[in-house]
């Protein structure tokens, strides 16, 4: 298999890599770019632990080929905090005990941020459906919903 | 002597008795006494048992003191999640 050379932007930084044509963006991020924040929980788009944004759209990195992202902009959990300051969502997850084991947390933060970027004031139902593709096995989701709503409220007030 | 309550499926090794009396001052002596008096209990005791002493469960603790008036119940060794 001939490797492909790709130029892309991850969290605003220009990056280049080579990858096999059938290599997923998730494998590229984790194994070639050292960004292990996105997790592989299933590899089939059923758990959301690898959620990232691709040109502003929320996607599962396991369902994107590395070869597809030439010229694209990718956002991962590593890019959510700026200059060492936590994003309100990140702070709210800590404050509300919205994470336990934390393996789903990066994906949920990327997904929740993607929603709040579009809809700063979602209902609980909208939030629950938006996050339906992000499995969490520890929390029962209750505190996740509370944390996102609290962050949304703080972001609206800011 | 200490009266020890056994769980039901062990009674085939104690002539059908649900409770047996053993001379013991601690868990270790109790287990040794049980095996000596009822050799059929040996495999289960070697696999592991817990002891409830006055309602509190001990998983190992050979030298836990047992008094003659203590409530002593033998239980399977448990594992959790």
């Amino acid at each position, binding site marked *: 298999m001939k490797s492909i050379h790709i130029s892309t932007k991850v969290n605003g930084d220009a990056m280049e890599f080579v990858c096999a044509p059938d290599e997923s963006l998730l494998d590229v991020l984790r194994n070639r770019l050292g960004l292990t924040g996105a997790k592989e929980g299933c590899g089939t788009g059923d758990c959301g632990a690898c959620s990232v944004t691709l040109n502003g759209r*929320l996607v599962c990195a396991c369902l994107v*080929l590395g070869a597809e992202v030439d010229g694209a902009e990718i956002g991962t959990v590593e890019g959510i905090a700026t200059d060492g300051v936590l994003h309100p969502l990140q702070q709210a997850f800590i404050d509300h005990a919205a994470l336990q084991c934390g393996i789903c947390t990066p994906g949920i933060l990327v997904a929740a941020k993607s929603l709040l970027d579009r809809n700063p004031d979602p209902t609980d139902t909208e939030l629950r459906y938006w996050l339906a593709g992000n499995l969490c096995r520890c929390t029962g989701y209750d505190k996740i919903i509370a944390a996102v709503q609290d962050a949304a409220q703080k972001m609206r007030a800011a | 002597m200490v009266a020890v309550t056994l769980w039901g499926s062990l009674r085939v090794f104690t002539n059908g008795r649900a409770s047996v009396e053993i001379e013991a001052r601690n868990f270790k002596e109790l287990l040794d006494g049980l095996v000596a008096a009822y050799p059929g209990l040996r495999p289960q005791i070697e696999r592991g048992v817990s002891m409830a002493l006055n309602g509190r469960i001990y998983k190992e603790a050979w030298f836990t003191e047992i008094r003659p008036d203590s409530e002593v119940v033998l239980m399977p060794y448990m594992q959790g999640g």
Partner: protein
Amino acid sequence: MRYLRPNTAAEAAQSLADEPGVTRVLAGGTDVLVQLKAGMVEPDLIVDIKHIDGIRSITAEAGGFRIGAAVAGAELGAHAGVKALWPGVVEAFELIGSTQVQGRCTMAGNLCNGSPAADSVPALVAAGAVARIVGPKGTRDVPVRDIPTGPGKLSLTKGEIITSILLPARPPRSGDAYLRFIPRTEMDIAVASAGVSLTLDAAGKITAAAVALGAVAPTVRLVEAASAAIIGTKLDDAALSNLMQAASAACSPIDDKRGTIAFRTQVAGVLAKRAALIAYSRAGGSK
């Protein structure tokens, strides 16, 4: 394996036709990458069609809309015009997968995956949608209902790709709806589904109807008897009961991990009834 990213449909079709090995067309990738991961397929060539000119656009055409083959669910869901004309098709498309999958999945991909349980297909069939196909020998238009021929099987020939799907214009007082049954509220494959499209006269009587069922037969089934059961009625209880019976009678499902024959047969009838009621209301009918 090779990865190609052609800029024209003709180029894509030619490279697919020229490849002697296994090929896969990549649009949203939400099925293809799962197949790769599971080792179900090891393609020699993957053709990414997303960079074909015009393939990501939605354009008005003859009173309807032409949906490019690489338009993602989230993009169609944001299109007010299509949503107003064919709400059932849009809601069917939007039911596919999670928010993450919606960012990538396409109707053409959903159709070409060949699953009898594909969500968008019953709605497209009920809508009378037509796929535009480009192949090495040129372009042809084929009704969506004629594309799947069995589980995983299509009427497309080697080298052919779907480049767009046309949702036709429709008469006034028309409505459509799609419902599916899944065990959870999200993230499942349809166990049974129904798409209904209908048109009313000024008095609220149904003059035309199409009822398509999913996940209850090897391909999506357009049920003439179900349409007949409601044409000429105002969806009174007797018509609904006949519709349910006709829909259930048209089912020939399988028992599998997702549902039983009895369950699918029963629920397909229930969904046809409920979808008909929504479509009727959307067409302006009142009960």
